[in-house]
């Protein structure tokens, strides 16, 4: 088991009222699994995503990623987990506009303290995996949306993380580019990557091996259910 969440709750205080955004969520992800979590907006799926991605900490519950208890880590250790164990793919790509595709991809390695020549080599390798070897020196404004998302995926896999975390990865793309991105995910999955995807779109969720649904902060179906 790569990821194991038990009894996770997340509350937000809004003035005097406390909103319970996540209610007793259990989530397990196995090595090599391709899981989609579906839910409408406001269902708490983005909050769950942030908790899984170690950008936020739960109000209660336990969360183990690999052999680490995430709820006990410091800021600095959380940064290291985000850097080494998780690869983020965002809806809006979030590439740095002034850097080339290669430099964008190499960025997590820079934060991980990898040497420059090694960074360039591994970034070029990741770009090759996503089929953009010929676009290394292009900046994001010279690339199409689909190409930008593939650069972002290259950035997510460059550090060889335990898990890819994709938040509406096709949300900003036309259907053709979206399809290409989904094919890329399928290919990464075939080569052994663990993928957790969050979406509101059934046709996208259908690409995954398993689908789980979230509504009003409750994740339906126990661990292992389809």
């Amino acid at each position, binding site marked *: 088991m790569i990821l194991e969440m038990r009894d996770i709750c997340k509350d937000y205080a809004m003035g005097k009222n406390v909103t319970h955004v996540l209610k007793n969520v259990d989530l397990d992800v196995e090595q090599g699994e391709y899981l989609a979590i579906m839910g409408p907006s406001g269902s708490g799926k983005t909050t769950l995503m942030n908790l899984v991605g170690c*950008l936020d900490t739960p109000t209660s519950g336990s969360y183990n990623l690999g052999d680490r208890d995430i709820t006990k880590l410091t800021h600095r250790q959380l940064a290291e987990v*985000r850097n080494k164990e998780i690869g983020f793919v965002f809806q809006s790509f979030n590439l740095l506009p002034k850097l080339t595709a290669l430099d964008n991809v190499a960025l997590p390695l*820079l934060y991980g303290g990898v040497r420059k020549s090694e960074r360039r080599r591994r970034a070029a390798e990741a770009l090759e995996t996503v089929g953009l070897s010929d676009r290394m020196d292009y900046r994001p404004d010279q690339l199409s949306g689909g190409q930008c998302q593939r650069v972002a995926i290259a950035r997510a896999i460059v550090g060889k993380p335990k898990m890819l975390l994709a938040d509406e990865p096709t949300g900003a793309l036309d259907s053709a580019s979206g399809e290409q991105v989904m094919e890329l995910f399928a290919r990464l999955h075939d080569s052994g990557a663990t993928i957790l995807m969050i979406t509101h779109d059934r046709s996208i969720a259908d690409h995954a091996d398993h689908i789980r649904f979230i509504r009003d902060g409750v994740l339906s179906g126990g661990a292992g259910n389809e």
Partner: protein
Amino acid sequence: MFENISLAFQGIWSHKLRSFLTMLGIIIGIAAIITIVSTITGINEQIKTNLIGSGTNVVNVTINADGYPADFSYGSIPQGIGTISEELRASLDELPSVLETSLYRKRDWADEVYFKNNSFNGAIYGVDSHYFSVAGYDVQYGRGFTETDFERARKVAMVDDTAASGLFAGENPVGQTIEFRGEPFTIIGIVSERVENSPVINSVDDYYMYANTSGGTIFIPINCWDIVYRYDEPQSVAVHAEGTDEMTTAGTNVADALKESGVITNDYFSYEADDLLQQAAELQSLSESANNQLIWIAGISLLVGGIGVMNIMLVSVTERTREIGLKIAIGARQSRIMWQFLTEAAVLTSLGGVIGVGGGIGLAYMLSNVMGTPVGISIPACVVAVVFSMVIGIVFGLVPAVKASKLNPIEALRRE
């Protein structure tokens, strides 16, 4: 670190106008300070040069009576003042900071010295064989004093340029005979000062002082002094220091050695160094204190500039919220985000400092052309100015940088 700096330069370059306007406060502040400091340094050097004489590095050790310079030209010589032997003088050469010493006697106002019908109204120096090298004179024409001149107390004399042209009215002085209180002295040579050191005349008093010494100087061997004046007149010591900054030490060392030697047994008198350096420092501090206030006023401009930098950096943090959010999401530590913004602020203000130093030097030279103030560029001041602007960047960049590093990545990523 290096990558942060190069990224910072890229950022500055991509917002040229904004960066320049941000730097302007720093540029103006640093330029103003460098202009003021350059002018102060220039004035200080001018004071030092005028008062001490550039490059001669000579300090005179003379006898003081109760703290004031004593004059033995007239009246009887007091009890308890002996003469300095050649052995004692040679020992003074060995003192720290001292290059060479020389004994002399002098009359500021020579009387009864004539060439034909012209009377001489300059100074008379009785000097030993070291004097010309100590005081920085070269023999221009004719010959200098020889061993034999001293041993046999030959009645020979040398004149400086001024006396040569003033007293001899166009005739070649060498070989001429002057009448010195009834004694004939033969002129054997002309000396001139190695370093031309004409004082700047700022007031009527200065003018009188300068005009009254314009008669020039006549030198005779110190052994001949008693032919025209008296036996065993007190001597003064000219001390050639190893450097301008060591003049005070050299003078004090010689004066102390003479006090210990027991040449003077009368408590009322003592050998003291004419501390020109001290007088120069007093004049310099006078000009500095006025200008230091100007530096404080210019410092306010730096404060305003620093606040401007903080303001723009805060705007920049807001603009780049998503970028910061992404960096945190992919594993950048808080400290790295903080350093990125601190570096950017420091590079921005250092660049402003460098431009300011350049502008300040330019302005100082422009002022000196228009108003005739001297300019002295102080390298340490320039370095301090650039380092100080960097510190301003770090200090005023701290608040925006900490703000950036403390951003909540969830909200930062959501921001459009």
